[in-house]
């Protein structure tokens, strides 16, 4: 879409991806310019690269309060989720057949468990309420002695609701001691504290490009002592659990970005700023007739999902995009087919078809929000008719 005006771009789609921070760019650049050796090579060129890789692993581990040897770098969140779900199922195949998850997981989890369902597993997909909440009771009731895997995201990527992952861990430990618990923390990492000790999950997924590192890296935390089969075979990298020459530049960038994003005081400060920004956003959106906020009040403040109830999400997205404002639709695709998350919320048709997700990062300001809200209002005036 061509831009109508030559205004400043306003990027409010940080749950889709974030702009790489200068530190991440510098780290990646250094790996390509200076430390481009193969980390597996035993000569100096390789050892230098391996040292940088170790540094990144320590940074990501420390951000999760984990040990470096519990961190396995992957190509991203999707791969980490696949390794976790298929690995856990393969390991526990003989211990039962129930998998407990939610209906609003990322597609890399939902599509993976659907595949396992075809192989004979029983999949329980907990349904959320209309704000994306799942109750601890729901989880406790679903996890029975036959359960082999519980996989639940910490924060939903479309509405920002926070899921009862700690309750999931407790239920699993109590009802199904052999069950493996996996937690997709892609949207939570770098925004709220994610501590493997506090959470107690066996497997945790995080991703680089959601925290101002480039695309192409993620990590799976695997609790020390837990053995699950790997999906790929071929080399000794990542302790032979995820073989293949390491993507050293993006991993180094991941480490640099994680150190910044997960610095405790920085994280808390940013959280408060963004909470205030979120409150300002919802307050301003409430000022427009007919708008409903789909995110719950206790959502992660980085995500605000709302519906205009009168303009198709795709049309509003195009309208905003023409004006240099970038958000995303609750609809994964056009032609009135809302995403699985929006469907699971059970919203009325008009709200489901018009759901828009705004997602913040530390760079966003109230000016950005003002422009967004004013432009949404303008869009409604111009575009609102039947759809």
């Amino acid at each position, binding site marked *: 879409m061509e831009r109508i005006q030559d205004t400043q771009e306003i990027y409010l789609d940080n749950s889709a991806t974030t702009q790489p921070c200068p530190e991440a760019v510098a780290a990646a650049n250094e790996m390509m310019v200076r430390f481009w050796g193969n980390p597996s090579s035993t000569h100096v060129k390789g050892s230098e690269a391996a040292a940088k890789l170790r540094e990144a692993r320590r940074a990501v581990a420390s951000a999760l309060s984990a040990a470096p040897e519990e961190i396995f770098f992957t190509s991203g969140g999707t791969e980490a989720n696949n390794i976790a779900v298929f690995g856990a199922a393969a390991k526990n195949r003989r211990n039962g057949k129930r998998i407990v998850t939610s209906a609003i997981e990322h597609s890399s989890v939902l599509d993976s468990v659907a595949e396992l369902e075809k192989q004979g597993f029983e999949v329980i997909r907990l349904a959320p309420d209309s704000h994306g909440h799942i109750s601890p009771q729901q989880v406790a009731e679903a996890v029975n002695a036959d359960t082999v895997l519980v996989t639940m995201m910490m924060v939903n990527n479309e509405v920002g609701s926070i899921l009862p992952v700690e309750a999931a861990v407790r239920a699993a430990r109590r009802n199904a001691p052999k069950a493996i618990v996996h937690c997709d923390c892609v949207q939570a990492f770098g925004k709220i504290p994610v501590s493997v000790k506090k959470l107690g999950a066996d497997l945790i997924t995080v991703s680089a490009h959601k925290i101002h590192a480039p695309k192409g890296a993620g990590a799976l935390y695997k609790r020390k002592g837990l053995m699950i089969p790997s999906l790929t075979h071929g080399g000794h990298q990542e302790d032979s659990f995820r073989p293949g020459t390491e993507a050293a530049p993006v991993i180094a960038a991941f480490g640099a970005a994680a150190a910044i994003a997960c610095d405790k005081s920085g994280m808390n400060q940013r959280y408060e700023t963004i909470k205030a920004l979120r409150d300002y956003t919802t307050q301003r959106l409430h000022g427009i007739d007919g708008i409903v906020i789909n995110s719950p009040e206790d959502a992660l403040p980085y995500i605000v999902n709302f519906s205009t109830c009168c303009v198709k999400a795709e049309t509003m997205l195009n309208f905003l995009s023409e004006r240099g404002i970038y958000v995303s639709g609750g609809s994964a695709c056009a*032609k009135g087919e809302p995403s699985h998350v929006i469907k699971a919320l059970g919203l009325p048709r008009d709200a489901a078809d018009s759901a828009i997700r705004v997602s913040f990062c530390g760079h966003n300001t109230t000016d950005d929000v003002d422009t967004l809200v004013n432009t949404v209002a303008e869009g409604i005036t111009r575009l609102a008719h*039947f759809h």
Partner: protein
Amino acid sequence: MNEIILIKNGELALKGLNRRSFEETLAKNIQKAAAPFGGVKVWRSQSTMFVTPLEGTDIEDAVEAIAKVFGIAALSRAAEIPKDMDEILPAVCEYLGDELNDAKTFKVNAKRADKKFPLKSPEICATVGEYILDHFPHLTVDVHDPDLIVTVEIRDTSAYIHKQPIRGAGGLPVGTGGRACVMISGGIDSPVASWMMAKRGLELSAVNFASPPYTSLRAEEKVKDLLSKVAEWSGEIRLHIVPFTEIQEAIRDYCPEDMLTVIMRRYMIKIAQILARKDEALALISGESVGQVASQTLRALECTDAAADMPILRPVIGMDKEEIVTIARRIDTFDISIQPFEDCCTVFTPKHPKTKPVLEKIMQAEKALEADEINVAAMIENAVRDTQLTIITPDR
């Protein structure tokens, strides 16, 4: 050993006095199709076209491209050999060695265009057959249904050796039938309709209606991707992208909801005609098929036709969806067509469209748009003025 491509014309042979110009167009189209792969020389002799790859041209690529040139019934890759049995015999076993190894049965076919060649056709067959059997003892001769047909053609210039030809694209050379302008939305039907009319020798222009922000740039990219696939067969396509938002919104705001689709289509046709004429096109092409959707009933077609004063070609009019999809898959447009982007035809779809619109009432409803304060004529003028032209070339 020189390798060339032998072309068998399709319907061209039937075209009497026009034949020469048809063949010239075909030769030009073959050259154009092969140009991206290094180029070829095309020459004619004794009612056959010969395509010689230029230095550095990959013959596989050239064959693949030429197999999509309309006006060709069949084509063969052939080895060019001096007209001497002592050269021909070993060349057969070398050139078709893999095929002879894989086959269980074969026969030899001889064509003797050069009547001065010492051996007659049956003698050529016998000699070549015997030689093959000597060198590939696992083979047996089967004259009725052989795995491999070894053809030896003795022409004025040289001898040519080839196996069974591959099927050409059929139809007539693009450019021999004039130009038509297709109305393309992004669905499955209009690319197929374009392809079918190109097959009948028509050059293509295309019109797409964009309604931002209701439609996105992705929808335009999709149309370009679709036409690039069609262009592999039709050659270059002139694509006009018309900004249609203003007109579509006016129709939505001032016309009865159940008539929106038919009225919209009538204005699309009016605009498409203006652009078609600029390209010297003599007809419009549309992907309508009777009864597929509300705007494709006979009553609705009557209403859209009445907006046109040039013929509207509808090659898929009598086809089932399945038959259309079969062609869409063959020309690789199906997977692109099903990408879910809102297009101009799905914007403002009425909940209960009229399936039997009455032309008189439609024209009555359009009067609202002709009022001075709306002035649809000026809107059409603006839309035509702001139309963007893109030249679509083949994907590969």
